[in-house]
């Protein structure tokens, strides 16, 4: 292997340090035996133990996961439908307006989205709780899903759908049997993105959550205001671990599929010659 120049080594070190040093510190201190966050007093896993006895945190974690799963599922359905109409619908009345409006929440300050949702929920007399957080998260994350799915649909070979119609399927069958299975990776990415967004959203959730339901980010944020506890470090470490496992799995699956497709193509080429 070629040796790297000192410049490349420096750039790489700085880059990694910038990205991961804060997290590393957090992970290390989650194993601190001392109650004082900034003083190292030997290795211990006791904070993980106390974390799992903290009812308030566990409740918040359960609410967060529930909200993330439900809202990202709804967002994926709505976002995929919107993307399909925008890419495939041709030039219908109000198309430009609709496509502009679907991307607007991407750039809208979260505070404003949260505030307007809060006003809406108060206006229609909806009690704030899990339902309102789900609605709010669906609203803002469906835009992200729609962006991911429509970028896949743009490169999708239209003749596949035409072939399905030509062979006698209805529009719905063509979508369900041909389009959807092929764009599934993009739809799944969209779902994962929506899931992640919902998982770590603080601003919108704090506007739309009520006393009956608190999400984990809100819980952490309010706990930190009373001082950082080693328990929070332990909780954050677990979240980092979950996210890492998810990302690594996703990229491994993608890579394995790419390699398999390449091998198949080569085998077919050889068989033909």
């Amino acid at each position, binding site marked *: 292997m070629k040796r790297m120049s000192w410049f490349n080594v420096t750039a790489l070190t700085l880059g990694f340090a910038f990205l991961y040093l804060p997290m590393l510190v957090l992970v290390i201190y989650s194993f601190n035996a001392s109650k004082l966050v900034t003083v190292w007093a030997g290795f211990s896993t006791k904070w993980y133990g106390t974390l799992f006895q903290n009812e308030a945190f566990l409740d918040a974690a359960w609410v967060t996961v529930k909200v993330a799963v439900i809202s990202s599922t709804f967002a994926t359905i709505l976002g995929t439908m919107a993307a399909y109409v925008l890419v495939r619908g041709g030039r219908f009345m109000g198309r430009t307006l609709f496509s502009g409006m679907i991307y607007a929440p991407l750039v809208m300050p979260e505070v404003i989205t949260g505030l307007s949702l809060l006003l809406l929920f108060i206006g229609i007399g909806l009690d704030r709780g899990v339902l309102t957080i789900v609605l709010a998260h669906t609203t803002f994350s469906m835009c992200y899903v729609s962006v991911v799915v429509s970028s896949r649909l743009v490169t999708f070979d239209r003749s596949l759908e*035409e072939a*399905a*119609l*030509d062979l*006698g399927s209805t529009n719905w*069958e063509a979508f369900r049997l*041909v389009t959807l299975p092929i764009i599934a990776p993009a739809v799944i990415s969209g779902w994962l993105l929506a899931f992640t967004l919902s998982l770590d959203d603080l601003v919108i959730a704090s506007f739309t959550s009520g006393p009956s339901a608190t999400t984990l980010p809100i819980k952490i944020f309010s706990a930190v205001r009373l001082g950082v506890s080693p328990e929070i470090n332990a909780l954050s470490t677990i979240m980092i671990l979950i996210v890492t496992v998810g990302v690594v799995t996703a990229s491994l699956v993608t890579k394995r599929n790419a390699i398999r497709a390449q091998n198949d193509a080569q085998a077919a*080429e050889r068989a033909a010659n």
Partner: protein
Amino acid sequence: MSQTVFAPWEDPDEKPLIRFQNVTKRFGEFTAIYDLTLDIFEKEFFALLGPSGCGKTTMMRMLAGFESVTEGRIELAGADIGPVPPNERAVNMMFQSYALFPHISIWENIAFGLRRDKKSKAEIEARVEEMLKLVRLEKFAHRKPHQISGGQRQRVALARSLAKAPKLLLLDEPLGALDKKLRQETQFELMDIQETTGTTFVIVTHDQEEAMTVASRVAVMDEGRVIQVATPAAIYEYPNSVYVADFIGDVNIIEGLASASGPEEYALNWKEGQAPLTATSQKPFSEGQKAHLAIRPEKIRISTERPDDTVNAMQGKVLDIAYLGNLSTYHVELPDGQVIKAQTANTRRIARRNITWEDPVWISWSATAGVMLDQ
């Protein structure tokens, strides 16, 4: 036993399978098809031939139902198919990109259309096996489309579009993605399959050789209009315009003014001070009318001395020789600078041929060798 020639288009009692009646297609301001009227008969292998952008693909997409007709109507077996959506037409299409479904096996690709018809399991199985056998892909049934070669994919696409036994099969540049040798083999395979299944085929192509090889009739198109519809031989030997003559094969065009010189015979004054050329034509030309004489290179003889037995002869010098192995094409420059192509079959070995570059030669042809065209 005498065999009747397949020519339903000459039988006035024959009902066409497809009938384009004054069909016009516009995309906004752009007119893709102008007032087109055309009949295609059952069991025909009909080729739509033309350069890209001539409207041939639009015609095919109108037959499949992916484009609507702006004016006029299209009939399939006597019924207007305008209001019928693509999934209810007894028409199937083989796409240029093949459009095989990448996520399901070859077997499932072929079964796709049959499943949509809610056929019984046994029926589907029997039909898929039959189709796989027809295109000789039994061994590959359980592979995915990306696990087979381009030529095999082409055959899967064909099998899939034939599986529902359509009244009409549309083929959009079906062999475009194959290399030349495979393409020629596949052309004959297509013809065999067309004959075995008795399906009417309409093929879209820009490759004139392909159209000539496979088709019973060819429609030559240009800019949304059908210029000529005829059998491949008639298109080649009796083109109706300079455009068709030039598009199909190689041709020499000599322009001049016609004057009658006998029954169905004309003298073509092509250059002042030169003897007029003699050509026959069933199409009448008035005195002094501008005419184009189109002669195929293989109908022009080349010799070192003036032949005595010919009506048309010109002298020139050899500018270039294109040696193709079986044939040689000589580019002969006339004194006025015009270049005429003459082709001879190389029936003798190369050492025995005596014409080379810069040689003064005579080119000659008979009165019936060329076609006189008015446009």
